[in-house]
């Protein structure tokens, strides 16, 4: 059962990392508009040379 002493803190740390990533994503506006982004993947830029 001593393994728990290692595994449980690791799971708590992983949870902290997951929550941290989620907070970062929400603060960065990743969830503000869930409709436009899925479409942008379908749209190729027809003139890549124009991009600056």
């Amino acid at each position: 059962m001593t393994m728990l002493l290692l595994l449980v803190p690791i799971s708590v740390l992983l949870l902290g990392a997951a929550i941290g990533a989620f907070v970062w994503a929400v603060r960065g506006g990743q969830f503000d508009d869930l409709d436009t982004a899925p479409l942008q993947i379908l749209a190729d830029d027809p003139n890549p040379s124009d991009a600056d």
Partner: protein
Amino acid sequence: MNTAAGACFHCGEALPAQPPRMVVDDVPRDFCCPGCATAAQWIRDAGLAQYYTLRQSNPARSTESGDDFAEWLHPDIVSAHVQAVAGGLEITVAVRELRCAACAWLIDRFLVRLDASVDVSANAATSRVRLRWNPQRIALPVLLQQMAALGFAPTLAGSPAQQREEQRQHRRELLRLGVAGLGAMQAMMFAEALYLDTAGQMAPATRDFLRWTAVLLSTPVVFYAGWPFIAGLLRDLRRGALSMDLLAGSAILLAYAASLIETLRGGAHIWIDAAVMFVFLLLAARQLEAWARRRARARTEALAQAVPAFASREGSDGSTQRVPVTQVRAGDVLRVAAGEALPADGVLLDAPAALDESLLSGEALPQRREPGERVLAGSSCGDAPLRLRVSQAGAATQLAALVRLVDQAQAQRPQLARLADRVAAWFIGGLLAAAALTFVLWWPTDPTRAFEIMLAVLVVSCPCALSLAVPAALAAAQDSLARLGVLVLRADALDTLARVDVLLLDKTGTLTTSKSQLREVSLYSSHDRAQVLQLASALQAGATHPLAAAFAEAANEPLAVSDWRRVAGQGVQASFAGHSYRLGRAEFAVGGADDGAVWLGDGRKPFARFGIGQHLRADAAAMAQALRAQGVQLELASGDAAAAVAEIAEALGIAQFRARQSPPDKLARARELQAQGRVVAMLGDGINDAPVLAGANVSFAFAEGAVTTHRAADFLLTGSSLLRVPEAIAIARRTRRIVRQNLAWALAYNALALPFAAAGWIAPGLAALGMTTSSLLVVLNALRLRRVKT
């Protein structure tokens, strides 16, 4: 959405006889007007033609009108809406036509090409566009002009502070839900491990270690994610009120506090899983509902604004100046361009004008107003510009008064909701009393178990399934309705909608399209049909008469007429090939008595009579049939004349109809039906309908209609299909069935479990498990509503 044949490729409107044509994606396409063709040409030349395959809704007809947006540089606007950001300035504008992701994509791509400093983020969910630009390299009016030229005319959005607050709130709610979900999952893992130790063989050190971890993990879930419930509990305690928050908050806090105490003293059980599960599930149900609501509101705000944001004010020296409408005062002289909405009430100057007052009065046809007559804010100017002297502005306008009327009607409504709250309060009060009684009764016999049993009662009886039964079903129903194009503005209206048995209809604009249509042509001379139509079309060509469009569609080759002259209030006359012709009312054109039709004659002799009718919406008949199949009676209440209303009623097989109905008449009719015990639904789109929309038990408005009607309506139809009404009723009835199943299950579960818990046969853990299973069942049952046939 791909545009149908016979419609403009860009905006989807009907095509004229000889449409402008242009090749897009190697296929020749037709357009309704040069404006749309230009817009499409720009889109094509910019290499963005993919927009047409990606889009789901059409933009507005593009206009080449000369709005140069220079007034957006007005200091008042700049200080209220424009913010300085790193690298330039930022503004958020509302774009009514921005409805699908492809539109957002197009705006984004198109504006970014203008200048590299421009940064655009268009949000289809809220119909907002945020523009960031460098004022040294490009001017704001240029950007706005380009958007308008694409068919996406920008309007001023609400204040930036309000938008930022909304965004902050949205993010805060999302964070709460995320923290609750992640934290609850992890805390429950450890709680589960503790439960699996049924024989109590776990070493106390391991057990305490797991307990401490679970308590630690649940702390942010309870106090951060669960804060809305705790805040609700505190608010209830301060005000002495009883609500669901009181029960949820106290159960969460008790379970958490007891678990903490038991962990500290090494007691027999902890109940941390009950606390976190509670927080997460309740929060999820609440958020689903709140987000559906906010989405609906953001869309309605961006829709048609009855009063424009700017007005052209005439200075004392005769020059005009664009000023924000908030600066318009009584006594100012304003100019209104053709097609624009009037910014204030006033008196018409100079020349007669045709005004579309359909939003205010329900009259479908533009009304002719003579100089000196009163004109109202919110009505829109016909084909010619006009001048007016402002008599009332801002809150003093008739439009604002109607809005207040709606507010009053709305304030009377939620009696049923208040009753439900009171009943729920008694229920919760009863449960709290039962829990307290359990504790008091157990204390003398077994003080060690008294708390545990009380907690079990509280958890088991806490109407988690009960509280989820309704919101989960409502959220699922809202979701399927939204996919159909029906936005639910008031969630509890779904229940009323299921009971509806009378639908009051407003004819104007609801059952008919706004365009008038040439119904019948009777000939009285040697002229044939094509000739009289050609003549009528030529005579009408210069007129601002609303019926001109009806003729223009019927005839395709214009004739050149001379000596054209308009006779106020009567009609027009002109010469063609040496003959004089008159078109208009019967007494003017043919010397007969007025019969409501339009006559062509020479002043004495009639040549033709034109019956003008309104164009019934294509799906009106199908809607009437579907509603009758559902057992919903139809009734027409219109502001129009008796003949027109009777014609529509007959076409749809509606037995009950009333003509010349003013808003108070319609409201009185709705009240009369309600007094008979009927449940009245109302479908309307004009501001004149707003009081009835608010007074009816449940109401539908069109998103294209006036904003004031949105505020009064329970449901908003984003498309123009009338079939959505019977579909919404069907979903509402299914929702009611599922809500009943859920309530029956949850109540039966609570009623069964409560005595067992009070008798001490259910441990809090088991109670929590049973509660969760019960909750899961009702949620899954509710999710059946999301299956929708589209």
